[in-house]
């Protein structure tokens, strides 16, 4: 068993052990290595100023993540490239040159983060379009420039001449074995993982850390024991089997998003506006499920699709709607963890909604999923799930029953809207008022009718 973690920064190997593995990557870079190009602005994943590139495996690309919410222990076995690693000796990189030429900076404080995120865009492609650029830079805030010159700079990069980080930093440390140091454990077998969780009350699984990392920074969260599943390579699994996608606990939101692009385009559309690339490259699908927020964006689909959770490698299976018992209360024993999720691919009429104050990079105020089974022009059965209107993502049984057997029309869905409104009890918070959520619960039904039936005509 290794008693330290290993990772590369700009091609050099680093070993860290004991309590230091709980340091954030951004602090390690800035204070430990005096590599102050990486900026820290928000410390919670919201701004991208701390963006670095990481590569997890030889089969993977370098991808951007937010270093402020990554504890070092999450980086065992990875190769990291910081803004300091982009320059080619004395020369600026192609991306940096483009930023200079297009006047992509004013105060420059956001610039390192943008430059790193842009570099990631050109890792795989020599050419990118505006949509890719805008999506790729959604996670980076700039308070000065108004973004336009930055977008222009990203599009102006001479991609063919841009150095690829996978060529410059091709090596990864050998780190497939188990690690234990201080309160951190990354076992290499599922049995060890289960035993550690059982034996350490209050043990927290940390995967992408996009939820846990924020608690640590902002709420002084301090778990008595931390468990990582990343060495359980079988949980990297992501495949389709008989119309069902099987995703392991290590599958990131970004990997899942790519996988479903053509399989579940509607969910792909929602994942497109979920967080930002930095968040999706770190955060996992199962983390989103296990966090169980009533406004988690993957949940409405998973609920109307009857996704199934596999616990402890198959020792138990739970249908997702049974998994949630109350606000952040789960059907999950202290000796259990989620190993896989089985996500059916829906071919029925399907629409998903994510409503937030700011359309991009914002936690939802309200979410909804509609699934209709149609028969000869009438609604045979329906499943409707709403998020953000109660402590859990809710099914709407009355509305569903009302729709059954009827033919879709604007009047029908307007009436259904009024029923839906009566089935929910939202509260007011910073993301939206109670009244607004009630109104959305109602309005979204006629809107669904329009999107599902009217637009096609």
């Amino acid at each position, binding site marked *: 068993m290794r008693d330290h973690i290993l990772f590369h920064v700009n091609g050099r190997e680093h070993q860290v052990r004991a309590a230091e593995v709980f340091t954030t990557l951004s*602090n390690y870079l800035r*204070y430990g290595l005096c590599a102050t190009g990486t*900026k820290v*602005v*928000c*410390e*919670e994943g*919201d*701004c991208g*100023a701390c963006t670095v590139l990481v590569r997890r495996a030889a089969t993977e690309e370098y991808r951007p993540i937010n270093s402020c919410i990554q504890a070092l222990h999450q980086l065992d076995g990875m190769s990291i490239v910081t803004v300091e690693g982009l320059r080619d000796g004395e020369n600026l990189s192609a991306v940096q040159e483009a930023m200079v030429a297009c*006047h992509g*900076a*004013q*105060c*420059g*404080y*956001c610039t390192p983060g943008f430059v790193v995120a842009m570099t990631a865009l050109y890792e795989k492609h020599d050419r990118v379009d505006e949509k890719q650029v*805008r999506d790729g*830079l*959604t996670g*980076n*805030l*700039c*308070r*000065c*420039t*108004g*973004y*336009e*010159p*930055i*977008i222009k700079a990203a599009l102006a990069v001479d991609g063919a001449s841009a150095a690829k980080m996978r060529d410059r930093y091709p090596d990864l440390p050998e780190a497939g074995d188990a690690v234990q140091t201080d309160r951190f454990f990354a076992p290499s077998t599922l049995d060890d993982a289960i035993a550690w969780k059982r034996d350490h009350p209050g043990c927290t699984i940390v995967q992408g850390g996009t939820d846990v990392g924020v608690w640590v920074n*902002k709420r*002084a969260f301090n778990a008595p024991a931390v468990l990582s599943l990343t060495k359980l390579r079988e949980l990297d699994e992501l495949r389709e089997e008989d119309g069902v996608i099987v995703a392991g606990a290590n599958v990131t939101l970004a990997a899942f998003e790519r996988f479903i692009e053509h399989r579940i385009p509607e969910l792909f559309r929602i994942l497109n506006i979920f967080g930002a690339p930095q968040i999706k490259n770190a955060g996992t699908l199962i983390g989103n499920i296990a966090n169980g927020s009533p406004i988690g964006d993957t949940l409405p689909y998973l609920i109307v699709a009857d996704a199934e959770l596999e616990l402890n490698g198959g020792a138990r299976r739970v249908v997702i709607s049974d998994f949630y018992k109350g606000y952040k209360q789960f059907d999950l024993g202290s000796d259990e963890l989620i190993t896989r999720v089985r996500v059916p691919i829906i071919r029925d009429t399907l629409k998903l909604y994510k*409503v937030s*104050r*700011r*359309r*991009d*990079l*914002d*936690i939802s105020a309200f979410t909804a999923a509609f699934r209709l089974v149609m028969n000869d022009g009438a609604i045979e059965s329906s499943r409707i799930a709403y998020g953000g209107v109660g402590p859990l993502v809710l099914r709407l049984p009355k509305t569903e029953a009302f729709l059954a057997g009827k033919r879709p029309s604007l009047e029908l869905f307007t009436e259904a809207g009024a029923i839906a409104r009566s089935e929910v009890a939202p509260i007011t918070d*910073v*993301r*939206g*008022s109670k*009244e*607004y959520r009630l*109104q*959305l619960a109602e*309005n*979204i039904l*006629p*809107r669904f009718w*329009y999107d599902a039936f009217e637009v096609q005509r």
Partner: protein
Amino acid sequence: MLAVLSHVNAPKLQKPQRTQGGGGGEASSNLAETNYIPFSDGTIHYLGQHIAVVVADTLEHAVRGAALVRVTYDPKPAKTSLDEHRASAKEKGTQQSPASFAKGDADAAFASAPLKVDQIYRTPYEHHNPMEAHGLIASWEGDYLTLYDSSQNIFSVRRTISQMFGVPPENIHVLSQYIGGAFGSKGSVWPHVVIGVMAAREVKRPVKLMVTRKQLFFTNGHRPATEQRVALGANADGKLVSIIHEGFGQSNNVCTFVEAFTASTKVIYDSPNMRGVHRGVDLDLPSGTYMRAPGDSTGMFALDSAMDELAYTAKIDPLQLRLINHADRDPLTGKEWSSKSLKECYAQAAERFGWSRRTPEPRSMRDGRDLIGCGMASANRPSHRAPASARALMRSDGTVLIRSGSHDMGMGTLTVMTQLAAETLDVPIERVRMELGDTNLPQTPIAAGSMTAASVGSAVFGAATELRKKIAALDGVDPATLDPATYTAVLRRHYLNEIEVQFNAKPPEEDPYSSHAFGAHFVEVAVDADIPVVRVRRVVSAFAGGRILNAKTARSQGLGGIVWGIGMALLEQTHLDTKLGSFTNVNFGEYLVPVNPDIRQLEVILVEENDPHVNPIGVKGIGEVSMVGVAGAIANAVFHATGKRVRELPITVEKLL
């Protein structure tokens, strides 16, 4: 841990004398919270106030130490709600913007006007949120202090610290060469600066102090919430006969700042009768301060919303209404404009935008499920200038060094000044270098109020001109005929390794002209009919800010300002829990600013002006005028799209239900 300092054991500091209002060229002291010396007593004026500092060898230890400090409180009732305490509003003027103005009899004229609009408008608390939080490193050696401070007003920092700590200003060296954004929040000496300097003196070591993002919401200023009444009286043809603009904003009793929202009202539209007054309601809340386009951005939201309402009342096109009420002279003072191209701004932006294709009826334009609306507004920002100095030095190898205290928060001071010096001396820009951000260099004012280009530019221009004269004088020739290619030859002929001049630029005591940058915004929004989320599809803005020294940096300021306006209109708001007197959404996850997908098509038109009066270089400044009016234009577009008039920012979905 090295020290815990609080009112219990902190050294006594002097109260700095306040001179000039903020940016004075003689570097007035500028403690943000005039009536509060950090750690001077145990009074807590507002939630979030610094009450103790822990100094340790590492950040972790300091954070741990801070968590161990036990505080006992003696609770007192607190006033936290603007609405509840409206009756206590009192006039609080600032030097640049006195609390009230009047011309004619505005109330009588309003009462008898055939057309009237009389409404209340509100703007919320907002925070600057530069990407870089405030921070400093303070290092004493005996009675000498070196202070690296993220500041847009280094000379004032020096003066203030000098007075408070009782050391001569010459002993204090303040450096601020790179600033990660400021927007006004780094223009005053906030308590953390005093505390950091104090801590370094006590522990006899260099001290680094960073303000956290959360603290930033309490201790470094905000745009105060306001409530404004605008009453417009007009004749049937739309000509204004009365403008009344009055109201109040949050203030507190440790700081003199009030949001001077009537400032633009004095200049933007012509009316024979007008009056305005802005008052402050002292609450037990953190201190407000100037935030990008203070006063004008909040005031113009109200005024231009009211103008739009008047346009509908009078059934006159909103642009036409503004042309009818165009002010050919400064309406309050009667002074001539040093230059004004507002009509050109309207015309060029309207043309590019396609304003004539707008159908006047609300809810008359659609695109699928989206309601489309177009709105417009005017922009204005006074052109200030303050005394500033610069030195220009030429070496016998032909290179030029420009030195001036000054600041560059990203507006491009370095670029523009280098360019100006190169042009004035007629030498290639590659030969010119500039140093700034250092109190050992010649003195300059605060970098705010869009006056850096005008103030520092006048000094750099003066220094470069004088340098050229001095070189010419060596040979006794006319500077105009001196060939720049011969500079080095002249120097060598006179056995000079280098030659240097200093120039102190001063604005005239009494200015016969009224100088303002003007602009116009045209905005198209789409409002989702079911979800009523507003998206800004298109903005076309034109600005006239005198001579444009550098089109790239000016355009960049323009874009940045428009995006601030979009944020102000749709997203930005700091929520206040009046029970606690606490701001609640104190992070970037909940204090929303625009992200790149929120910004679609922006067009900036720079209308060049030749202004011989405003200052020697003819520059008016563009960094703030670009933001003024955007929120009003968006609110007007939202009305056009939906038929709903939102008179309270930001325009959230709740207000459109």
